[in-house]
């Protein structure tokens, strides 16, 4: 195995995870409480609600060098703020087409519903998203080069 390939294998992506305070962030806590292990690639940003996350924030995260983005909110019907998770989902649906249009591979930006009682699911999503982004390799499309 040459050095480059080895680096690729050891390469750990950085993924920004916007988690809503009430469900998904609590789910991530529960993953910890239950000691479900997942790759150390996520950098969690706590937001009050997934509805707080705008398309611009996702793009900005990619521009800042994130290899992937995860937005996660409460399950349908569970939103602490009634309907914020639906806005997030709708925004994501629109953004997805745009991302493809500008050349961002599908799979870099991910969306999920994770409740406060789903520690295991959180760990699963973290693993899935990480392996998906790992396969795509480092994100370069939007990174600002100085």
């Amino acid at each position, binding site marked *: 195995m040459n050095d480059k390939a080895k680096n690729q294998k050891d390469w*750990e992506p*950085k993924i*920004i995870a916007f988690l809503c*305070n*009430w469900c998904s*962030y*609590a789910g*991530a*806590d*529960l*993953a*910890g*409480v*239950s*000691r*479900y*292990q*997942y790759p*150390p690639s*996520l*950098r*969690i*940003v*706590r*937001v*009050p*609600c997934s*509805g*707080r*996350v*705008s398309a*611009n*924030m996702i793009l*900005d*995260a990619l521009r*800042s*060098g*994130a290899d992937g983005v995860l937005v996660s909110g409460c399950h349908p*019907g*569970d*939103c*602490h*703020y*009634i*309907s*914020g998770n639906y*806005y*997030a989902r709708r*925004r994501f649906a629109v953004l997805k087409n745009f991302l493809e249009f500008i050349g961002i591979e599908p799979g870099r930006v991910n969306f999920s519903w994770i*409740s*406060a*009682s789903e520690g295991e699911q959180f*760990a699963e999503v973290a693993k899935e998203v990480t392996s998906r982004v790992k396969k795509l390799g480092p994100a370069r499309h939007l990174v600002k080069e100085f």
Partner: protein
Amino acid sequence: MSTPKGSVLIVGGGIAGVQAALDLADSGFYVHLVEKSSAIGGSMSQLDKTFPTNDCSACILSPKLVECGRHLNINLLTLSEVLSIEGEPGSFRVKVRENPRYVDVDKCIACGSCAEKCPKKVPNEFDLGLGKRKAIYLRYPQAVPLKYAIDPEHCIYLKKPGRCGFCEKVCPADAINFKDTAREHDLHVGSVILALGFRPFDPSRLDFTGYGQFKNVVTSMEFERLLSPSGPCLGHMERPSDHQEPRKIAWLQCIGSRDINKACHGYCSSVCCMYAIKQAVIAKEHSESGDVDATIFFMDMRTHGKGFEAYYNRARDEGIDFKRARVHTILPAANDNLKVRFAGEDGKIAEDEFDLVVLSVGLETDPQVMRLAHELGIELDSDSFAATSCFRPVETSRKGIFVCGALAEPKDIPQSVMEASAAALEAERILHPARWTETRKKEFPPERDVHAEPPRIGVFVCSCGINIASVVDVQAVTDYAWTLPGVVFAQNNLFTCSQDTINQMAEIIKRERLNRVVVASCTPRTHEPLFQETLREAGINKFLFEMANIRDQDSWVHQDEPDAATLKAKDLVRMAVAKVRGDEPLPYNSVPVTKSALVIGAGVAGLTAALSLADQGFPVTLVERKDRLGGHARKFFRTWQGQEVQSYLQELAGMVEANANIDVHLGTTVEDVSGSVGQFRTMLSDGTEVKHGAAIVAVGAESFKPRQGRWNYLYGKNPNVHTLLELDQRFIKDDPGLKGLNQAVFIHCVGSRVPERPYCSRVCCTHAIDQAIHLKEMNPDMDIFMLYRDIRTYGKREHLYQKARSLGIVFIRYDLDNLPRVSETSGRLVVEVKDPIIDAEVTLHPDLLILASAVRPRDDVGELSKLFKCAMTSDGFLLEAHMKLRPVDFATDGVYLAGLCHYPKPVEETIAQAKAAASRAGLVLSRDAVPAESITAVVNAQKCTGCSVCTKVCAYHAVNMDANSQKAVVDTGLCKGCGACVAGCRSDAITLKNLGNEQIMAAVEAAMEDF
């Protein structure tokens, strides 16, 4: 009674005492909390994890203890005991002796130098003697108060003055006081709550266990300490004989419970089945080899609580071996192992060898507590627990003195917490005229104006004992924090949430003139309020604070990757620092409280809750969808203690109808809910709009009617097949048709503990057995067969089971692979079942077939939960804010729950929970205003184009268009701070305070920086 005293004495500083203290102190009463050891926390502080969520016990308990220790209206009296109580409800005179600590609590900084130098090692009672402590000691690392104490039994100096005295010499704070003496306090209080807890059964009384003889036979409490990271082997599970990790562990259930022979304890201790499963699961998880064989020897598996059955199923799937057998002999084997001999269900004797045997010891009342109860005139029952009745679950035999927790009956933590709130409610009921008369108000120093100051950020990195430090290099993270822009102070702490560190943090904020603080520790969801209050105490605005979650979201989830976890911790700290740099001071908003409540559902829970609040002078609107009061309980015959439910229910309903403070709406449902804690507005189906400050949801549940399918058993087809409640109806009517019967069969678990309803309905075993006894008493010659899976007569209900057996009622066990078969021949019922004991088919011809069918959640409960924004479990019951410590609160502030909509439960627990809900609602209603959201949206009118997207996405109608300017304006009273409008705004004109785009992105960009 003249004006009562506005203060309460609570005896016992375990979780029950602490919860009662917090409820009372937060709703206007002064509390004296008496604890006999040197720190509060009780048995819960000794536990490693708690079932069924595997929460770390110390982690969830610690914030409550700290809150209690810091509370202005709670007077902690540790090392203290009650000598006497004279007087009557409203006015008791209490004598308390406070034993000397020999350490000045005002001076002690808990640095530990004294214990390090102390030459005297003694067995540590907190670790049940498995580890050692010094004669000067801290009860446990997170102790509240975090102050050392000298044990006079073992201190060399106190025994022979002049010798030793090292601690005094090394103490940097001059805190040692060998001349300390006992003090007596005379307290004048209005009411008393006893929360004296239990002690674990001592199995050395049972010689067959080999306990005390063989080193590798330990009690379950000892095993908790062996698992605990703060225990004698620092969480590396070791067996006592050779400090090797055990590979094969056996748990023996019912040691000192359900044993009327040697242990003299006929009752079931309720919690042991679950804690044994939990210990087996955790042992497997803890094991470094990853290879632990766990076997649990049991009689009946009693997993009757919320989420318990699922936990049991999961444990079985994970390979834990459940053996239905009673062990009769334990013999020594080679390598300090143990040979366990047992009789299986088939009667055959078998044998197996284990590295370690854990005795699942029961709960019993401490003889010292029995003596105290006797001196105070508190009646104990035949099991030496405080005598209570089903309809008055927290009242003792002495008026004005209440009881909660395991002193009244063995019970788990949530049940104890519920009772604690219920006991607090009973005290409030007597003392409400004196509310706020003896309390003091928290005054914070004026806040320093930091607007003009450049950021001076302090970073506190927590080791959390070894929870973080065993994976993350906390020193490296601390050193790294020093290098970040704006950081002028960084420090590593063993437990950042300990009272001592908190006080130190306040000092550092002042000394270093910090104007922003970052704590890198656990989750802000539990610990943010604690640290924010520290900021206020140090004179800076509490919103100048951020947390980096380096435990739950780092060290705990990357246990095998210390380098990556340390790197991530640095990233998280850098992100928090980037975010806090932009934080600004925010105002402390509040909402005035409408001092009335809405109670939904007028069953026993709703009626009890409504009365409990109305008696304190709070107006209550009681809504019931049916056209009469009483709910499910209208169908009940009697409690397990034999009290008739119908007469009680009539009395209760009569009191509600006669109460001028209660406005009853029958045949009415809730249509719409708006507003939030303090200021709800609810539309009822009868057109009434109710304004209320708090709400209690008590909408009940339904009984499962197996009209078709697998659990049908000819129900609805043969007239002699009934559900439990249908038989109760016949009991209530004293149906003569029940006399002269020859045979009855009961089938348990009809529709419970099955794939489509994988929970235990908790009440049916006791209910069915009580009915069987009643039938047998009516017809002494009758044959009665109980077809069951596990008998779950938990607590004192076990006596009913014993009585049923002694009356000759026959119990035949079945399982899901071998269901009873019911048919009829010319109208006569035929029940066939395989009896595993005689290993043969049995055919029965009952006159009556009773189905102990499940309690199922109501289908429409989902609608209601949406209106109040409450969560539900996957089984369809309503989900409380925290399964252990907030059993009657919803995550939504100001909304509480009680009764069957929470989980199936008997009437005594329903009453306790309803009272608890009333106590919690009282926390809101007793105040003029409650804190409101400070993080709200703001509009920059210059940028606003008036497109009105924000008004459409706001679920709270908090954003509106100003008619004149055509710009958006935010009503901060309604704004919840979700940020939907911010994300929706096309012109970047609306932002969220301290959560603006720039600030969130500052954290994101910081995450990406390489260093």
